[in-house]
Protein backbone atom coordinates (compact mmCIF):
# COMPACT_ATOMS: atom_id res chain seq x y z
CA UNK A 1 0.00 0.00 0.00
CA UNK A 2 1.02 3.58 -0.53
CA UNK A 3 2.55 5.68 2.19
CA UNK A 4 1.84 9.34 1.74
CA UNK A 5 4.89 11.26 2.83
CA UNK A 6 4.20 14.88 3.51
CA UNK A 7 6.60 17.75 3.28
CA UNK A 8 8.45 18.45 6.51
CA UNK A 9 7.35 21.82 7.82
CA UNK A 10 9.45 24.29 9.73
CA UNK A 11 8.36 23.14 13.16
CA UNK A 12 9.51 19.62 12.37
CA UNK A 13 6.33 17.80 13.35
CA UNK A 14 5.96 14.11 12.63
CA UNK A 15 5.02 14.26 8.97
CA UNK A 16 4.25 10.69 8.05
CA UNK A 17 0.71 9.77 7.44
CA UNK A 18 0.25 6.11 6.84
CA UNK A 19 -2.50 6.34 4.31
CA UNK A 20 -4.45 3.21 3.70
CA UNK A 21 -2.06 0.95 5.56
CA UNK A 22 -3.83 0.98 8.90
CA UNK A 23 -7.23 2.32 7.98
CA UNK A 24 -9.83 1.05 5.56
CA UNK A 25 -13.26 2.62 5.31
CA UNK A 26 -14.52 4.34 8.46
CA UNK A 27 -17.72 5.78 9.85
CA UNK A 28 -18.77 8.89 11.74
CA UNK A 29 -19.17 7.87 15.38
CA UNK A 30 -22.74 8.55 16.46
CA UNK A 31 -23.89 8.23 20.08
CA UNK A 32 -26.94 6.30 18.80
CA UNK A 33 -24.66 3.50 17.60
CA UNK A 34 -22.41 3.09 20.63
CA UNK A 35 -24.06 -0.09 21.87
CA UNK A 36 -23.85 -1.66 18.40
CA UNK A 37 -20.20 -0.72 18.08
CA UNK A 38 -19.25 -2.01 21.50
CA UNK A 39 -21.16 -5.23 20.78
CA UNK A 40 -19.13 -5.98 17.64
CA UNK A 41 -17.34 -9.31 18.29
CA UNK A 42 -13.68 -8.62 19.02
CA UNK A 43 -12.46 -11.52 16.83
CA UNK A 44 -14.13 -9.85 13.84
CA UNK A 45 -12.31 -6.59 14.36
CA UNK A 46 -9.04 -7.80 12.87
CA UNK A 47 -10.77 -9.14 9.80
CA UNK A 48 -13.14 -6.21 9.59
CA UNK A 49 -11.08 -4.45 6.94
CA UNK A 50 -9.72 -1.95 9.40
CA UNK A 51 -12.95 -0.29 10.42
CA UNK A 52 -12.33 3.03 12.19
CA UNK A 53 -14.40 5.92 13.52
CA UNK A 54 -14.22 9.69 13.18
CA UNK A 55 -15.53 12.24 15.67
CA UNK A 56 -15.92 16.00 15.62
CA UNK A 57 -13.13 17.03 17.97
CA UNK A 58 -15.01 19.91 19.62
CA UNK A 59 -17.85 17.61 20.74
CA UNK A 60 -15.35 16.18 23.22
CA UNK A 61 -14.41 19.51 24.79
CA UNK A 62 -15.74 18.26 28.12
CA UNK A 63 -13.93 17.85 31.42
CA UNK A 64 -15.16 14.32 32.12
CA UNK A 65 -18.22 12.10 32.25
CA UNK A 66 -19.85 9.51 30.01
CA UNK A 67 -19.08 11.17 26.67
CA UNK A 68 -15.34 10.71 27.16
CA UNK A 69 -15.86 7.25 28.65
CA UNK A 70 -17.76 6.09 25.57
CA UNK A 71 -14.96 7.36 23.35
CA UNK A 72 -12.43 5.53 25.54
CA UNK A 73 -14.41 2.33 25.17
CA UNK A 74 -14.51 2.67 21.37
CA UNK A 75 -10.83 3.56 21.26
CA UNK A 76 -9.94 0.30 23.02
CA UNK A 77 -10.83 -1.63 19.86
CA UNK A 78 -10.72 0.86 17.01
CA UNK A 79 -8.57 3.56 15.50
CA UNK A 80 -10.17 6.97 15.65
CA UNK A 81 -9.78 10.25 13.82
CA UNK A 82 -10.34 13.76 15.19
CA UNK A 83 -12.06 16.03 12.68
CA UNK A 84 -12.19 19.66 13.85
CA UNK A 85 -15.00 21.98 12.83
CA UNK A 86 -14.32 25.00 15.07
CA UNK A 87 -10.65 25.82 14.52
CA UNK A 88 -11.31 28.66 12.02
CA UNK A 89 -7.97 28.23 10.27
CA UNK A 90 -8.70 31.12 7.91
CA UNK A 91 -9.45 33.90 10.40
CA UNK A 92 -9.29 35.27 13.93
CA UNK A 93 -6.29 33.30 15.18
CA UNK A 94 -6.27 35.09 18.56
CA UNK A 95 -8.20 32.30 20.25
CA UNK A 96 -6.33 29.51 18.47
CA UNK A 97 -4.03 28.76 21.39
CA UNK A 98 -6.89 28.12 23.82
CA UNK A 99 -8.62 25.99 21.18
CA UNK A 100 -5.60 23.86 20.30
CA UNK A 101 -4.79 23.37 23.97
CA UNK A 102 -8.05 21.46 24.29
CA UNK A 103 -7.46 19.57 21.04
CA UNK A 104 -3.97 18.61 22.21
CA UNK A 105 -5.28 17.26 25.52
CA UNK A 106 -7.62 14.97 23.56
CA UNK A 107 -4.86 13.94 21.16
CA UNK A 108 -2.53 13.13 24.06
CA UNK A 109 -5.12 10.85 25.59
CA UNK A 110 -6.68 9.22 22.53
CA UNK A 111 -3.73 9.12 20.09
CA UNK A 112 -5.89 9.44 16.98
CA UNK A 113 -4.61 8.02 13.71
CA UNK A 114 -5.63 11.18 11.87
CA UNK A 115 -6.30 14.80 12.82
CA UNK A 116 -8.04 17.12 10.39
CA UNK A 117 -9.63 20.56 10.04
CA UNK A 118 -11.21 22.69 7.31
CA UNK A 119 -9.80 25.30 4.91
CA UNK A 120 -12.48 27.79 5.96
CA UNK A 121 -13.23 30.54 8.46
CA UNK A 122 -15.81 30.43 11.25
CA UNK A 123 -14.68 33.04 13.80
CA UNK A 124 -14.63 36.78 13.57
CA UNK A 125 -14.22 39.47 16.18
CA UNK A 126 -14.38 36.94 19.02
CA UNK A 127 -17.64 35.36 17.81
CA UNK A 128 -18.03 31.81 16.51
CA UNK A 129 -20.43 31.37 13.60
CA UNK A 130 -20.78 27.58 13.85
CA UNK A 131 -20.59 26.90 10.12
CA UNK A 132 -17.82 26.42 7.56
CA UNK A 133 -17.53 29.63 5.55
CA UNK A 134 -15.29 29.56 2.45
CA UNK A 135 -12.32 31.87 2.07
CA UNK A 136 -11.76 34.03 -0.99
CA UNK A 137 -8.96 32.35 -2.91
CA UNK A 138 -6.58 35.30 -2.84
CA UNK A 139 -2.90 35.58 -1.84
CA UNK A 140 -3.96 37.44 1.29
CA UNK A 141 -6.41 34.70 2.34
CA UNK A 142 -3.82 32.05 1.51
CA UNK A 143 -1.36 33.71 3.91
CA UNK A 144 -4.04 33.82 6.58
CA UNK A 145 -4.89 30.13 6.06
CA UNK A 146 -1.23 29.12 6.17
CA UNK A 147 -0.77 31.10 9.40
CA UNK A 148 -3.85 29.40 10.85
CA UNK A 149 -2.62 25.92 9.90
CA UNK A 150 0.78 26.78 11.35
CA UNK A 151 -0.78 27.96 14.66
CA UNK A 152 -2.94 24.83 14.81
CA UNK A 153 -0.08 22.43 14.06
CA UNK A 154 2.22 24.22 16.51
CA UNK A 155 -0.50 24.08 19.15
CA UNK A 156 -1.14 20.36 18.84
CA UNK A 157 2.42 19.32 18.00
CA UNK A 158 1.61 17.35 14.85
CA UNK A 159 0.56 17.89 11.29
CA UNK A 160 -3.04 17.91 10.16
CA UNK A 161 -5.10 17.27 7.08
CA UNK A 162 -7.12 20.19 5.72
CA UNK A 163 -10.47 19.68 3.99
CA UNK A 164 -11.83 21.39 0.88
CA UNK A 165 -15.05 23.37 1.53
CA UNK A 166 -18.54 23.00 0.04
CA UNK A 167 -19.11 25.98 -2.26
CA UNK A 168 -22.57 27.37 -2.89
CA UNK A 169 -21.44 30.40 -4.87
CA UNK A 170 -18.21 31.81 -6.24
CA UNK A 171 -16.28 34.60 -4.59
CA UNK A 172 -13.74 36.82 -6.32
CA UNK A 173 -10.52 34.82 -6.48
CA UNK A 174 -6.95 34.94 -7.78
CA UNK A 175 -6.60 31.18 -8.16
CA UNK A 176 -8.68 28.03 -8.35
CA UNK A 177 -9.29 25.82 -5.34
CA UNK A 178 -6.79 23.01 -6.07
CA UNK A 179 -4.01 25.61 -6.50
CA UNK A 180 -5.06 27.33 -3.29
CA UNK A 181 -5.14 24.13 -1.23
CA UNK A 182 -1.97 22.62 -2.68
CA UNK A 183 -0.06 25.85 -2.04
CA UNK A 184 -1.37 25.96 1.54
CA UNK A 185 -0.35 22.32 2.07
CA UNK A 186 3.12 22.70 0.57
CA UNK A 187 3.89 25.84 2.53
CA UNK A 188 2.47 24.71 5.87
CA UNK A 189 3.43 21.04 5.76
CA UNK A 190 -0.15 19.89 6.24
CA UNK A 191 -1.84 17.20 4.17
CA UNK A 192 -5.19 17.34 2.44
CA UNK A 193 -8.50 15.67 3.19
CA UNK A 194 -10.48 15.53 -0.02
CA UNK A 195 -14.21 15.55 0.61
CA UNK A 196 -15.70 14.04 -2.52
CA UNK A 197 -19.24 15.11 -1.63
CA UNK A 198 -18.09 18.72 -1.10
CA UNK A 199 -16.32 18.56 -4.44
CA UNK A 200 -19.39 17.15 -6.20
CA UNK A 201 -21.62 19.82 -4.63
CA UNK A 202 -19.18 22.59 -5.58
CA UNK A 203 -19.00 21.28 -9.14
CA UNK A 204 -22.78 21.37 -9.47
CA UNK A 205 -23.23 24.69 -7.68
CA UNK A 206 -20.39 26.61 -9.32
CA UNK A 207 -19.74 24.71 -12.55
CA UNK A 208 -16.19 23.48 -11.93
CA UNK A 209 -14.91 20.22 -13.43
CA UNK A 210 -14.61 17.74 -10.53
CA UNK A 211 -12.31 15.32 -12.31
CA UNK A 212 -9.99 18.08 -13.43
CA UNK A 213 -9.94 19.29 -9.81
CA UNK A 214 -8.87 15.84 -8.56
CA UNK A 215 -6.14 15.61 -11.18
CA UNK A 216 -4.61 18.85 -9.94
CA UNK A 217 -4.06 17.46 -6.41
CA UNK A 218 -0.74 15.64 -5.94
CA UNK A 219 -1.56 12.17 -4.57
CA UNK A 220 1.19 12.36 -1.95
CA UNK A 221 -0.61 15.25 -0.24
CA UNK A 222 -3.85 13.33 0.26
CA UNK A 223 -4.21 11.62 3.63
CA UNK A 224 -7.96 10.97 3.82
CA UNK A 225 -11.13 11.01 1.73
CA UNK A 226 -14.67 11.85 2.88
CA UNK A 227 -17.95 10.88 1.27
CA UNK A 228 -21.43 11.88 2.44
CA UNK A 229 -24.98 12.55 1.33
CA UNK A 230 -26.42 15.85 0.11
CA UNK A 231 -29.85 17.32 -0.49
CA UNK A 232 -31.34 19.84 -2.90
CA UNK A 233 -32.08 23.27 -1.46
CA UNK A 234 -35.74 23.39 -0.34
CA UNK A 235 -36.36 26.54 -2.40
CA UNK A 236 -33.97 26.29 -5.36
CA UNK A 237 -34.05 22.53 -5.87
CA UNK A 238 -31.30 20.76 -7.84
CA UNK A 239 -29.74 24.06 -8.90
CA UNK A 240 -28.33 24.39 -5.38
CA UNK A 241 -27.11 21.28 -3.59
CA UNK A 242 -26.64 21.44 0.18
CA UNK A 243 -23.99 19.49 2.09
CA UNK A 244 -26.51 18.08 4.57
CA UNK A 245 -24.87 14.81 5.67
CA UNK A 246 -28.48 13.75 6.13
CA UNK A 247 -28.90 11.29 3.25
CA UNK A 248 -27.17 8.21 1.85
CA UNK A 249 -24.19 8.81 -0.44
CA UNK A 250 -25.49 9.60 -3.93
CA UNK A 251 -24.49 7.55 -7.00
CA UNK A 252 -22.44 10.32 -8.68
CA UNK A 253 -20.47 10.73 -5.44
CA UNK A 254 -19.66 6.99 -5.42
CA UNK A 255 -18.54 7.32 -9.04
CA UNK A 256 -16.33 10.27 -8.17
CA UNK A 257 -14.90 8.30 -5.23
CA UNK A 258 -13.87 5.52 -7.63
CA UNK A 259 -12.08 8.08 -9.78
CA UNK A 260 -10.41 9.64 -6.73
CA UNK A 261 -9.09 6.26 -5.56
CA UNK A 262 -7.79 5.62 -9.05
CA UNK A 263 -5.92 8.95 -8.98
CA UNK A 264 -4.73 9.02 -5.34
CA UNK A 265 -4.44 5.31 -4.61
CA UNK A 266 -5.79 3.78 -1.45
CA UNK A 267 -6.61 6.23 1.29
CA UNK A 268 -8.77 6.00 4.42
CA UNK A 269 -12.34 6.72 3.29
CA UNK A 270 -14.89 8.05 5.77
CA UNK A 271 -18.65 7.73 5.29
CA UNK A 272 -19.99 10.82 7.07
CA UNK A 273 -23.49 11.03 8.49
CA UNK A 274 -24.65 13.76 10.89
CA UNK A 275 -28.44 13.93 10.52
CA UNK A 276 -31.35 11.54 9.81
CA UNK A 277 -29.12 8.93 11.41
CA UNK A 278 -30.03 5.47 10.11
CA UNK A 279 -29.48 2.18 11.94
CA UNK A 280 -25.90 1.05 12.47
CA UNK A 281 -26.54 -1.87 10.09
CA UNK A 282 -27.61 0.52 7.35
CA UNK A 283 -24.59 2.77 7.86
CA UNK A 284 -22.28 -0.25 7.96
CA UNK A 285 -23.70 -1.33 4.63
CA UNK A 286 -22.67 2.03 3.10
CA UNK A 287 -19.30 1.62 4.73
CA UNK A 288 -18.97 -1.86 3.14
CA UNK A 289 -19.58 -0.28 -0.25
CA UNK A 290 -16.77 2.20 0.41
CA UNK A 291 -14.54 -0.66 1.55
CA UNK A 292 -15.33 -2.59 -1.62
CA UNK A 293 -14.01 0.34 -3.69
CA UNK A 294 -10.78 0.19 -1.67
CA UNK A 295 -10.56 -3.60 -2.00
CA UNK A 296 -11.09 -3.37 -5.74
CA UNK A 297 -8.32 -0.79 -6.01
CA UNK A 298 -5.99 -2.98 -3.96
CA UNK A 299 -6.75 -5.99 -6.13
CA UNK A 300 -6.08 -4.00 -9.28
CA UNK A 301 -2.79 -2.67 -7.94
CA UNK A 302 -1.70 -6.23 -7.00
CA UNK A 303 -2.67 -7.50 -10.42
CA UNK A 304 -0.68 -4.70 -12.01
CA UNK A 305 2.36 -5.61 -9.93
CA UNK A 306 2.02 -9.33 -10.82
CA UNK A 307 1.58 -8.45 -14.47
CA UNK A 308 4.74 -6.34 -14.43
CA UNK A 309 6.63 -9.23 -12.77
CA UNK A 310 5.42 -11.70 -15.43
CA UNK A 311 6.41 -9.30 -18.20
CA UNK A 312 9.83 -8.84 -16.64
Amino acid sequence: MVKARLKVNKAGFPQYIVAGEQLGAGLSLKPEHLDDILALPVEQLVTNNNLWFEVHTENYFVAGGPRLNYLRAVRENFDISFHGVGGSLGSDHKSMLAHTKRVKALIDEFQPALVSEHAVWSKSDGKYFADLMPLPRTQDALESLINGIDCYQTGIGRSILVENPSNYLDFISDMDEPQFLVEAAKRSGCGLLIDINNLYISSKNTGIDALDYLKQIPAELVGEIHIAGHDPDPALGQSLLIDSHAAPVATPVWDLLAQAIEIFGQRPVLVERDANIPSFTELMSERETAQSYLNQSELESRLNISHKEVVR
Partner: protein
Amino acid sequence: MSTNQYIDAFTRYLRTGDPSAMKHFCENPSHIKRLAVYRNGFYKGCVDALIANFPMCEKKVGSENFRKMARLYVDRFPPEQGTLVGYGLSFPDFIARLIKDSEFENKHIFEVTVNQQSASDLYMNLVDIAHLDYAWLMSLMSADSIEALTIEHITQLMEQGIELTELNVKLSPSVQLLSVNGSAFFEWISLKTNNYGVDQAKSPTDDFVMLWRLQGAVQARSLCSAEVKLMQALQGTGRSLGDAFDAAVTVDENFEVSEAFTACLQNELLEIQIN
Protein backbone atom coordinates in the same frame (compact mmCIF):
# COMPACT_ATOMS: atom_id res chain seq x y z
CA MET B 1 -9.80 43.49 -1.43
CA SER B 2 -8.32 42.19 1.82
CA THR B 3 -9.38 39.03 3.63
CA ASN B 4 -10.31 41.17 6.64
CA GLN B 5 -12.71 43.24 4.53
CA TYR B 6 -14.29 40.05 3.16
CA ILE B 7 -14.69 38.51 6.61
CA ASP B 8 -16.05 41.77 8.06
CA ALA B 9 -18.64 41.96 5.27
CA PHE B 10 -19.53 38.29 5.66
CA THR B 11 -19.80 38.72 9.45
CA ARG B 12 -22.13 41.67 8.95
CA TYR B 13 -24.29 39.53 6.70
CA LEU B 14 -24.36 36.66 9.21
CA ARG B 15 -25.30 39.01 12.06
CA THR B 16 -27.88 41.14 10.24
CA GLY B 17 -29.00 39.27 7.12
CA ASP B 18 -28.08 42.32 5.02
CA PRO B 19 -25.96 41.05 2.06
CA SER B 20 -25.22 44.46 0.52
CA ALA B 21 -21.60 44.57 1.72
CA MET B 22 -20.98 41.14 0.19
CA LYS B 23 -21.89 42.27 -3.33
CA HIS B 24 -18.30 43.35 -4.04
CA PHE B 25 -17.02 39.88 -3.23
CA CYS B 26 -19.42 37.74 -5.22
CA GLU B 27 -18.40 36.61 -8.71
CA ASN B 28 -22.01 36.30 -9.83
CA PRO B 29 -24.29 38.92 -8.17
CA SER B 30 -27.39 36.86 -9.03
CA HIS B 31 -26.12 34.15 -6.68
CA ILE B 32 -25.93 36.43 -3.63
CA LYS B 33 -29.11 34.90 -2.17
CA ARG B 34 -27.20 31.64 -1.84
CA LEU B 35 -25.29 33.19 1.06
CA ALA B 36 -28.38 32.26 3.06
CA VAL B 37 -27.10 28.67 3.22
CA TYR B 38 -24.29 29.83 5.53
CA ARG B 39 -26.54 32.02 7.67
CA ASN B 40 -29.09 29.23 7.99
CA GLY B 41 -26.30 26.84 8.93
CA PHE B 42 -25.07 29.21 11.64
CA TYR B 43 -28.52 29.64 13.19
CA LYS B 44 -29.42 25.96 12.84
CA GLY B 45 -26.20 24.89 14.57
CA CYS B 46 -26.72 27.29 17.48
CA VAL B 47 -30.48 26.69 17.88
CA ASP B 48 -30.00 22.91 17.74
CA ALA B 49 -27.32 23.22 20.42
CA LEU B 50 -29.71 25.21 22.64
CA ILE B 51 -32.41 22.56 22.11
CA ALA B 52 -29.92 19.89 23.14
CA ASN B 53 -28.74 21.88 26.14
CA PHE B 54 -32.22 22.99 27.34
CA PRO B 55 -34.45 20.00 26.52
CA MET B 56 -37.08 20.45 29.26
CA CYS B 57 -37.36 24.13 28.49
CA GLU B 58 -38.13 23.24 24.87
CA LYS B 59 -40.61 20.58 25.98
CA LYS B 60 -42.44 23.08 28.18
CA VAL B 61 -42.91 25.87 25.65
CA GLY B 62 -43.01 23.73 22.49
CA SER B 63 -40.60 23.56 19.57
CA GLU B 64 -41.79 26.66 17.68
CA ASN B 65 -41.80 28.94 20.72
CA PHE B 66 -38.42 27.66 21.82
CA ARG B 67 -36.85 28.15 18.41
CA LYS B 68 -38.15 31.73 18.28
CA MET B 69 -36.64 32.45 21.69
CA ALA B 70 -33.41 30.64 20.81
CA ARG B 71 -32.94 32.67 17.62
CA LEU B 72 -33.28 35.88 19.62
CA TYR B 73 -30.62 34.59 21.99
CA VAL B 74 -28.28 33.69 19.11
CA ASP B 75 -28.75 37.22 17.72
CA ARG B 76 -27.84 38.72 21.07
CA PHE B 77 -25.25 36.23 22.31
CA PRO B 78 -23.56 34.28 19.51
CA PRO B 79 -21.09 31.64 20.73
CA GLU B 80 -17.62 32.87 21.61
CA GLN B 81 -15.68 29.62 21.57
CA GLY B 82 -15.13 27.24 18.70
CA THR B 83 -17.54 24.70 20.13
CA LEU B 84 -21.25 24.53 20.90
CA VAL B 85 -20.72 22.22 23.87
CA GLY B 86 -22.10 24.12 26.86
CA TYR B 87 -23.50 26.94 24.71
CA GLY B 88 -26.20 28.91 26.54
CA LEU B 89 -24.65 29.84 29.88
CA SER B 90 -26.64 33.07 29.96
CA PHE B 91 -29.78 31.64 28.31
CA PRO B 92 -31.77 31.36 31.59
CA ASP B 93 -31.07 35.02 32.42
CA PHE B 94 -31.94 35.97 28.85
CA ILE B 95 -35.31 34.24 29.21
CA ALA B 96 -35.91 36.11 32.47
CA ARG B 97 -35.27 39.46 30.75
CA LEU B 98 -37.42 38.45 27.80
CA ILE B 99 -40.35 37.66 30.08
CA LYS B 100 -39.85 40.87 32.06
CA ASP B 101 -39.75 42.96 28.87
CA SER B 102 -42.82 41.25 27.45
CA GLU B 103 -44.76 41.91 30.65
CA PHE B 104 -43.65 45.55 30.59
CA GLU B 105 -44.68 45.94 26.94
CA ASN B 106 -47.77 43.79 27.49
CA LYS B 107 -46.76 41.65 24.51
CA HIS B 108 -46.59 37.86 24.61
CA ILE B 109 -43.44 36.09 23.46
CA PHE B 110 -45.12 32.77 22.88
CA GLU B 111 -47.93 31.55 20.73
CA VAL B 112 -50.22 29.42 22.85
CA THR B 113 -51.36 26.17 21.25
CA VAL B 114 -54.55 24.27 22.06
CA ASN B 115 -52.70 21.95 24.41
CA GLN B 116 -51.21 24.81 26.41
CA GLN B 117 -53.26 26.70 28.94
CA SER B 118 -52.03 30.27 28.67
CA ALA B 119 -48.91 32.31 28.02
CA SER B 120 -48.53 33.02 31.73
CA ASP B 121 -48.50 29.25 32.40
CA LEU B 122 -45.68 28.95 29.90
CA TYR B 123 -43.72 31.72 31.66
CA MET B 124 -44.20 30.13 35.09
CA ASN B 125 -41.08 28.26 36.22
CA LEU B 126 -39.50 28.62 32.77
CA VAL B 127 -36.37 30.43 33.99
CA ASP B 128 -35.83 27.89 36.77
CA ILE B 129 -36.40 25.00 34.37
CA ALA B 130 -33.71 26.52 32.13
CA HIS B 131 -31.38 26.77 35.16
CA LEU B 132 -32.09 23.11 36.01
CA ASP B 133 -31.43 22.01 32.41
CA TYR B 134 -28.09 23.81 32.40
CA ALA B 135 -27.09 22.48 35.83
CA TRP B 136 -27.92 18.96 34.56
CA LEU B 137 -25.64 19.54 31.55
CA MET B 138 -22.81 20.90 33.69
CA SER B 139 -23.06 17.93 36.02
CA LEU B 140 -22.98 15.52 33.07
CA MET B 141 -19.88 17.09 31.52
CA SER B 142 -17.96 17.92 34.68
CA ALA B 143 -14.58 16.45 35.55
CA ASP B 144 -14.41 13.01 37.09
CA SER B 145 -13.57 12.85 40.80
CA ILE B 146 -9.87 12.54 41.47
CA GLU B 147 -10.36 10.58 44.68
CA ALA B 148 -14.02 9.86 45.39
CA LEU B 149 -14.73 9.01 49.00
CA THR B 150 -16.39 5.58 49.08
CA ILE B 151 -17.46 3.20 51.85
CA GLU B 152 -14.39 1.02 51.10
CA HIS B 153 -12.16 4.06 51.35
CA ILE B 154 -13.64 5.04 54.71
CA THR B 155 -13.22 1.49 56.02
CA GLN B 156 -9.52 1.60 55.12
CA LEU B 157 -9.07 5.00 56.79
CA MET B 158 -10.76 3.75 59.93
CA GLU B 159 -8.50 0.68 59.98
CA GLN B 160 -5.55 3.07 59.79
CA GLY B 161 -6.92 4.84 62.88
CA ILE B 162 -7.63 8.11 61.05
CA GLU B 163 -10.17 10.33 62.83
CA LEU B 164 -12.90 10.80 60.25
CA THR B 165 -14.19 14.09 61.67
CA GLU B 166 -10.79 15.62 60.89
CA LEU B 167 -10.77 14.41 57.30
CA ASN B 168 -10.81 17.33 54.84
CA VAL B 169 -13.31 16.74 52.09
CA LYS B 170 -15.07 18.70 49.35
CA LEU B 171 -17.93 18.12 46.97
CA SER B 172 -17.11 16.09 43.90
CA PRO B 173 -16.91 18.18 40.67
CA SER B 174 -20.23 16.90 39.33
CA VAL B 175 -22.25 18.28 42.25
CA GLN B 176 -24.37 21.28 41.24
CA LEU B 177 -26.41 23.18 43.83
CA LEU B 178 -29.11 25.65 42.95
CA SER B 179 -32.13 27.29 44.44
CA VAL B 180 -35.34 27.32 42.38
CA ASN B 181 -38.84 28.60 42.88
CA GLY B 182 -41.53 26.54 44.58
CA SER B 183 -42.87 24.02 42.10
CA ALA B 184 -40.20 24.39 39.39
CA PHE B 185 -38.23 21.31 40.43
CA PHE B 186 -41.33 19.11 40.41
CA GLU B 187 -42.37 20.45 37.04
CA TRP B 188 -38.88 19.80 35.66
CA ILE B 189 -38.98 16.22 36.98
CA SER B 190 -42.43 15.65 35.51
CA LEU B 191 -41.27 16.98 32.13
CA LYS B 192 -38.21 14.72 32.30
CA THR B 193 -40.15 11.61 33.26
CA ASN B 194 -43.29 12.35 31.23
CA ASN B 195 -45.15 11.91 34.49
CA TYR B 196 -47.57 14.80 34.51
CA GLY B 197 -49.34 13.35 37.54
CA VAL B 198 -46.54 14.64 39.78
CA ASP B 199 -47.93 17.14 42.24
CA GLN B 200 -47.15 20.61 40.94
CA ALA B 201 -48.76 22.47 43.81
CA LYS B 202 -47.29 25.94 44.08
CA SER B 203 -45.06 26.23 47.09
CA PRO B 204 -44.33 29.62 48.63
CA THR B 205 -40.78 28.59 49.55
CA ASP B 206 -37.77 27.98 47.32
CA ASP B 207 -36.46 24.50 46.69
CA PHE B 208 -32.76 23.84 47.08
CA VAL B 209 -31.83 21.27 44.48
CA MET B 210 -28.71 19.16 44.16
CA LEU B 211 -27.67 17.45 40.90
CA TRP B 212 -24.78 15.00 40.75
CA ARG B 213 -23.42 12.28 38.51
CA LEU B 214 -23.37 8.68 39.64
CA GLN B 215 -21.98 5.99 37.31
CA GLY B 216 -22.40 8.23 34.29
CA ALA B 217 -26.02 9.24 34.96
CA VAL B 218 -27.11 12.57 36.44
CA GLN B 219 -29.26 12.35 39.57
CA ALA B 220 -31.30 15.15 41.13
CA ARG B 221 -33.18 15.73 44.36
CA SER B 222 -34.29 18.56 46.60
CA LEU B 223 -32.49 19.03 49.91
CA CYS B 224 -33.75 19.74 53.41
CA SER B 225 -32.35 22.77 55.25
CA ALA B 226 -29.70 20.77 57.15
CA GLU B 227 -28.54 19.07 53.94
CA VAL B 228 -28.30 22.47 52.29
CA LYS B 229 -26.05 23.68 55.11
CA LEU B 230 -23.93 20.52 54.84
CA MET B 231 -23.46 20.82 51.09
CA GLN B 232 -22.76 24.55 51.26
CA ALA B 233 -20.07 23.89 53.87
CA LEU B 234 -18.40 21.41 51.53
CA GLN B 235 -18.49 23.64 48.44
CA GLY B 236 -15.31 25.13 47.02
CA THR B 237 -12.19 24.04 48.84
CA GLY B 238 -14.24 22.05 51.32
CA ARG B 239 -13.90 21.60 55.03
CA SER B 240 -13.33 18.92 57.66
CA LEU B 241 -16.17 16.41 57.89
CA GLY B 242 -16.68 17.31 61.56
CA ASP B 243 -17.12 21.03 60.82
CA ALA B 244 -19.45 20.37 57.91
CA PHE B 245 -21.78 18.10 59.89
CA ASP B 246 -21.68 20.50 62.86
CA ALA B 247 -22.95 23.22 60.52
CA ALA B 248 -25.83 20.96 59.47
CA VAL B 249 -26.76 20.10 63.05
CA THR B 250 -26.94 23.79 63.99
CA VAL B 251 -29.84 24.10 61.53
CA ASP B 252 -31.61 20.91 62.63
CA GLU B 253 -30.53 19.23 65.84
CA ASN B 254 -32.38 16.03 64.83
CA PHE B 255 -30.43 15.75 61.59
CA GLU B 256 -29.36 12.11 61.08
CA VAL B 257 -25.62 12.56 60.60
CA SER B 258 -24.72 8.86 60.02
CA GLU B 259 -27.55 8.40 57.53
CA ALA B 260 -26.56 11.52 55.61
CA PHE B 261 -22.88 10.54 55.60
CA THR B 262 -23.71 7.04 54.27
CA ALA B 263 -25.85 8.58 51.54
CA CYS B 264 -22.97 10.89 50.59
CA LEU B 265 -20.64 7.88 50.27
CA GLN B 266 -23.12 5.75 48.33
CA ASN B 267 -23.74 8.58 45.89
CA GLU B 268 -20.04 9.48 45.56
CA LEU B 269 -20.73 13.09 46.46
CA LEU B 270 -17.46 13.70 48.26
CA GLU B 271 -13.80 13.59 47.46
CA ILE B 272 -10.80 13.90 49.69
CA GLN B 273 -9.34 17.39 49.65
CA ILE B 274 -5.68 17.03 48.78
CA ASN B 275 -3.73 20.03 50.03
